[in-house]
């Protein structure tokens, strides 16, 4: 990997690592009496390890000039492996947490092992660790292919990928130690947030620089979504994390906003983390890999445009559906509800566009588990957005809010859509990237598919049941006009569903672990394909069907 870098780039890399190490040292010394110091030490240690890696390859011969005629895929390869490792970690913690709700005493009398600290490791691990790395890795791949241009340099993508993972590591270790802002999906403290801003801005600039070199006149649809993902996540992240640290050498901070304004800002962020992280980014993935794998152009250019701008506009209004019947002013709730319902149109336009793209390739869907992952993802995307729009209606939300129904909705989207489309994209790109004819074991891809599908269905049905039962028990009145059930009654009723969910989750986790193994074996032992499987010219870009007046 280092051998691919020019001498200059090796020096730049060392300088950046040195700067990170010094920054880490400063934090470690300044914050030695609190947890900030530990994070400084972690950053410093990782930077030093990376410096040794670079120094180890420092005297390797420089790459030849003809590398510029190809794409730069090393960061994508590493990113995919990291994503799969995070998938297994994040889902293992998720399943552990699921079991904790069945056997609450499995906490070894230790703070780090209790539910409240492990749960954010699950959510951040799967969303940011697994999802984020998959998005970064595939975006590097897609932006180069659809622009027919190589990335402008070879250090920036590594900075983005590894810098982002430093953020993920700081986040996860922080939760274990109790460092958290308590903002759902934005738990890391101020210093990690600042670091992420630096990484993210670099990512954005890298994207623009690559697009600027493109040889295609048009920016392909997938890039619209990746761009929206990068840009809007930056906006959301910065506004939602505004806070005042108690001191520059202390981990703790207090959010700038309080109460109702804070809640609204948090859910404006939270819902749009769903929209621009868990939806837009993965739609970008889908718009590249699905047509490519199916060998068919995107069904409709116009539908792509309508759904893209619809999603970008409507989603930003929808956050207040997380705050129905609360102290948030009524007019904001109503706006949130209205836009959430309208959101169904662009969402289904995307899902429909995807499924229509497969029309004519159904025999491939039948035979090819990779394409089937993508097809099922599109179906779950449609289901989840329908469910979401339904749950956003105030009277429905009166029942569903605070219950496991929300958790069911989340995982219909997270397992059925986000994870499935990612597995599909990864299974498609691994043989392309490592120039293999196929995955090491297509059978295992098939096994993974069925485990994932079964796991998702078990999980989601269990949570629908428990959520609706819970919601109904809380509001049921008995004979005398008093509430019929105590809270603990509802808790007891949940137990069988919690067990079912944990079992379904185990299926899903097993599938992911098999996937990681299969990918590893593909890299290790499959023979070189006799011919290059990927014509690097994307099937999809600049196709006639992509023009107006189609």
């Amino acid at each position: 990997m280092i051998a691919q870098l020019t001498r200059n780039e090796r020096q730049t890399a060392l300088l950046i690592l040195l700067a990170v190490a010094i920054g880490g040292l400063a934090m470690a010394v300044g914050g030695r009496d609190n947890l900030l110091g530990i994070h400084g030490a972690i950053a410093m240690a990782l930077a030093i390890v990376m410096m040794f890696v670079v120094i180890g390859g420092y005297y390797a011969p420089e790459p030849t000039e003809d590398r510029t005629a190809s794409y730069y895929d090393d960061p994508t390869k590493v990113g995919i492996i990291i994503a799969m490792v995070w998938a297994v970690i994040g889902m293992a913690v998720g399943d552990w947490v699921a079991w904790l709700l069945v056997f609450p005493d499995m906490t070894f009398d230790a703070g780090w092992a209790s539910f409240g600290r492990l749960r954010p490791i699950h959510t951040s691990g799967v969303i940011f660790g697994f999802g984020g790395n998959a998005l970064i890795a595939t975006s590097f791949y897609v932006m180069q292919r659809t622009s027919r241009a190589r990335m402008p340099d070879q250090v920036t993508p590594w900075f983005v990928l590894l810098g982002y993972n430093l953020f993920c590591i700081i986040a996860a270790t922080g939760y274990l130690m109790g460092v958290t802002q308590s903002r759902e999906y934005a738990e890391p403290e101020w210093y990690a947030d600042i670091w992420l801003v630096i990484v993210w801005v670099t990512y954005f600039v890298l994207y623009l620089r690559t697009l600027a070199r493109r040889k295609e006149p048009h920016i392909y649809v997938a890039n619209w979504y990746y761009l929206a993902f990068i840009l809007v996540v930056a906006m959301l992240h910065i506004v939602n994390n505004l806070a005042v640290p108690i001191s520059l050498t202390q981990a703790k901070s207090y959010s700038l906003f309080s109460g109702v304004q804070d809640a609204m800002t948090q859910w404006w962020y939270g819902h749009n983390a769903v929209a621009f992280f868990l939806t837009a980014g993965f739609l970008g993935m889908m718009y590249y890999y699905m047509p490519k794998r199916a060998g068919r152009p995107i069904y409709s250019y116009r539908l792509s445009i309508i759904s893209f701008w619809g999603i970008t506009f409507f989603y930003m209004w929808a956050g207040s559906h997380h705050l129905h019947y609360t102290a948030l002013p009524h007019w904001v709730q109503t706006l949130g509800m209205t836009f959430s319902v309208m959101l169904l149109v662009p969402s289904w336009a995307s899902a429909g566009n995807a499924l229509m793209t497969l029309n004519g390739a159904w025999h491939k869907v039948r035979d090819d588990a990779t394409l089937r992952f993508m097809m099922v993802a599109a179906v779950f995307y449609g289901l989840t957005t329908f469910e979401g729009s339904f749950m956003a209606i105030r009277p429905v939300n009166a029942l569903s809010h605070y219950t496991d129904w929300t958790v069911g909705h989340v995982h219909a989207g997270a397992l059925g859509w986000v994870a499935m489309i990612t597995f599909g994209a990864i299974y498609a790109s691994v043989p392309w990237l490592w120039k293999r004819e196929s995955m090491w074991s297509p059978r295992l891809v098939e096994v993974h598919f069925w485990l994932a599908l079964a796991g998702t269905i078990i999980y989601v049905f269990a949570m629908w049941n428990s959520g609706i039962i819970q919601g109904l028990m809380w509001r049921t009145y008995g004979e005398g006009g008093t509430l019929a059930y105590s809270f603990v009654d509802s808790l007891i009723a949940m137990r069988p569903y919690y067990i079912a969910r944990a079992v379904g989750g185990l299926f899903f986790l097993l599938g992911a672990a098999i996937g990681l193994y299969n990918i590893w074996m593909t890299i290790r032992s499959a023979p070189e394909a006799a011919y290059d499987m990927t014509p690097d010219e994307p099937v999809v870009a600049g196709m006639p069907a992509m023009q107006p007046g189609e």
Partner: protein
Amino acid sequence: MSFFGFHYRLERKTIPFVLAIVGVASIGGIVEIAPLFTIHQTVEAAPDMRVYTPLELAGRNIYIREGCYACHSQMIRTLRDEVERYGPYSLAVESKYDHPHLWGSKRTGPDLARVGGKYSDEWHVAHLYNPRDVMPESVMPAYRWLKRNTLDTSTLSLDLKAMRAVGVPYSDDMIANATADAYGQASPDSAQADGVKSRYGEATNVRAFDGVQGEPTEMDALVAYLQILGKLTDVAHTPVKQASTEAGK
């Protein structure tokens, strides 16, 4: 020129495309969030509203650290069954000093917005020590270490100062005495105890929350916080007010 024709040209230009995304995506947030700061009715008036004492604030930070918010909401909605189960629905002003808010989104356990005063200190200590001693079916984790750990009070002045920077009216006096007040509030017989009531009001709970006076433990802080939940102001209990907002809903 048709919309699609326009788009056909737009998607050839990176910077205009980027600006279009930013513009289109900004509108919703601006329309929904900015007015919350300017429209006065958003947060009700509550002249009797008091701030958290240093000990309660430390307890709140433990609540955050342990992730209690992952299972407990602090927001009673305007629904009949919730009001009957948990008490008067929550008003915006009640979390006016909550940086950050802890409304929560999941009720694996019951709402805690009005749990203050519902149980005795001993009940909370026993419950936090092992919930299943009190409630055999509970799935809440046991928090035994809270009783073992002495509370770190060294940074409390900094905490109060940061809170003041974001708009909570702590006085210089409160900031200067934060560490002593945390000690005093959990040790009623100590010399530091008197200052607490003079600074934070006669109604402040000054007790040995975990049953032991002296150096406050994390348990002292957390229980002090739980006992104040819903008690920073009385407005939510004022019947007239409640009726009028109900009509508006």
